[in-house]
């Protein structure tokens, strides 16, 4: 048995963990790439990164992100940005805190430690030269958390929800990255960049033995069965965990069917076919389908509301009665 609120919280733990890693990879990439670019080139690259992370609308709110420093602050420690590392790390900590009695103590300790260390850095406003240090720290902490998850957590519903959250977030990021790549205003699809941002470059080299071409990179990211980050692998894992939940709790059948359908369309080449005809609409539709899956899971979990509206009602003698405030 798992509380609906806990299921929801752990789903978001998975998503925020994945988001932390993705943002850190983007920051790492940016730190290494932008220094070689001219001012206008850097601006385009920054825009692309923000788009890849799905943060266009948030970025629009904070104004222009022209320089490196601004981009780093935005992605690293801007509390107004729900996708910043600080926001994600805080969210992971808070969600784990609220599910504390059902997760391994070590998982809480690692997440709490990451949050505390990160706060130390961000409170001290890290100068750019310490950026690599922060990123390394976060990356290591994420690895430690993954280690506890994989080796120290009972394979119960809670574990399943964390994995599902990760897989969903990862799928959305990967497809979002490819969409952004196809619509790059610079007119070229940068295959190396895509593989770097998904930590898949090395794996691609070992598998294919040559420099990546755009089509090969996209196919690899979507369909590779040997790559745990590929969309195919992610959907398969999400589907397996949803099956576990169906078996133990008899719940989330709708979500499992939706994921299964998507995975089957991928396997049967249906999506590849659509991409051959018109890649951008096909990929956008895929991106949309994944978002649908995420919302279907939320609907089936039915977590209680954070701040439900409660109203009071009463009758009084002499008159009919009335309603109280919330």
């Amino acid at each position, binding site marked *: 048995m798992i509380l609906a609120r806990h299921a929801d919280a752990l789903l978001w733990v998975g998503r925020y963990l994945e988001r932390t890693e993705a943002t850190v990879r983007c920051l790492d990439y940016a730190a290494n790439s932008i220094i070689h670019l001219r001012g206008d080139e850097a601006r385009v690259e920054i825009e692309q990164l923000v788009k890849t992370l799905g943060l266009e609308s948030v970025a629009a709110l904070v104004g222009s992100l022209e320089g490196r420093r601004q981009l780093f602050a935005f992605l690293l420690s801007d509390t107004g940005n729900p996708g910043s590392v600080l926001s994600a790390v805080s969210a992971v900590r808070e969600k784990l805190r609220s599910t504390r009695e059902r997760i391994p103590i070590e998982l809480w300790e690692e997440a709490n430690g990451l949050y505390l260390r990160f706060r130390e850095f961000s409170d001290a406003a890290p100068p750019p030269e310490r950026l690599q240090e922060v990123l390394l720290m976060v990356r290591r902490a994420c690895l430690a958390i993954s280690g506890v998850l994989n080796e120290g957590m009972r394979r119960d519903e809670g574990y399943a929800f964390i994995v599902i959250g990760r897989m969903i977030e990862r799928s959305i990021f990967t497809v979002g990255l490819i969409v952004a790549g196809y619509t790059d205003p610079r007119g070229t699809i940068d295959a190396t960049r895509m593989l770097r941002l998904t930590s898949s470059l090395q794996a691609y080299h070992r598998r294919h033995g040559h420099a990546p071409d755009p089509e090969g990179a996209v196919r690899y990211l979507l369909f590779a069965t040997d790559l745990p980050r590929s969309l195919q692998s992610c959907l398969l894992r999400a589907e397996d965990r949803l099956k576990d939940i169906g078996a133990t709790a008899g719940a989330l059948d709708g979500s499992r069917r939706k994921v299964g359908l998507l995975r089957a369309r991928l396997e049967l080449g249906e999506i590849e076919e659509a991409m051959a005809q018109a890649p951008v609409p096909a990929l956008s539709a895929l991106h949309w389908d994944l978002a649908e899956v995420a919302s279907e899971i939320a609907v089936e979990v039915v977590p209680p509301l954070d701040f439900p*509206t409660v*109203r009071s*009602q009463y009758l009084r003698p*002499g008159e*009919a*009665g009335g309603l109280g405030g919330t």
Partner: protein
Amino acid sequence: MKLDIRYRMHFRYSEPVRESQNEVRVRPRDDETQRVVSFRLTNEPPTKVLSAFDYWGTAVEQVGVRIAHTALELTAETSVDTLPRPAPPPDTPVEALADPDFRARHFEFLDPSPHVDWQTGDSVAARAAAATHSARSVPDLLAAVVAEVRGALRYESGATDIGVSLEELLAGGAGVCQDFAHLAIGMLRSVGVPARYVSGYLFAADETAAGDETAEMVSVQTHAWIEAAVPGAGWCAFDPTNGGTVGERHVVIGCARDYGDVPPVRGVFMGGATAEVEAEVVIGKRPAVEPAPSPGARSWPRAVTQGPPLGSRPQQHQQQQQ
């Protein structure tokens, strides 16, 4: 007097609401002045209704509706026999009120309570003191307070809402039966008379003029009046709203410190909806023959509660009230 009372409460919401939970205090008390022949509460949507007695001895029906709904209807049907009330209190001198034992026994009805707090300002106690300073006996004192309340307030529907303070009431000069009762209780307590709030039904077309009622069937709202403890005579009832005595036309639901202890309905629900509330009490004299089943009786299964569920509780509470 044999009376049939039908109390219909209807809440209609602007959008679906969920998880409504309500306490309903509409079942008349069963005691030496009135006998409940039958009682049932039906609700729509139909759910299980739980019954219990609260600290004050009032029957509480708990009605909850978890599923989404856009209306909640409660209907309480009671047949009750009321008996003539005891004679008016003897000429107890006011000095008897100061007896420490008497005060200790009634201290809950001497202290301020949430809806009856005369200590937030000076005017309530001052007016009560001025009105009663010449009273030598407790009945005189009670009459003086009722007269003072009737002089201070005029009956006006919609002039007040729950949560109005006694000071605001006096300043506004208008209210409904509940406000008359609260002000009278505040004044009585401020001059050392234990006083309590009574929630109930009144068989009269106009609650401000209960005396000259001739109708056989009336459509009204629930009513509120007061009781004061008189040394040597127990609780004596008064109706400050109409200035009259309390008799066979008054049906008691419960007595407590103030409205907050005996509201007819109190509840919460989830959802941001606005609601319209309709409530209506229909009271009539019961025909000598047993009534046939009401033609409006519905066929679907519904929860029905009848009679007191816990044998020992009412008795214990009656003891406490003596």
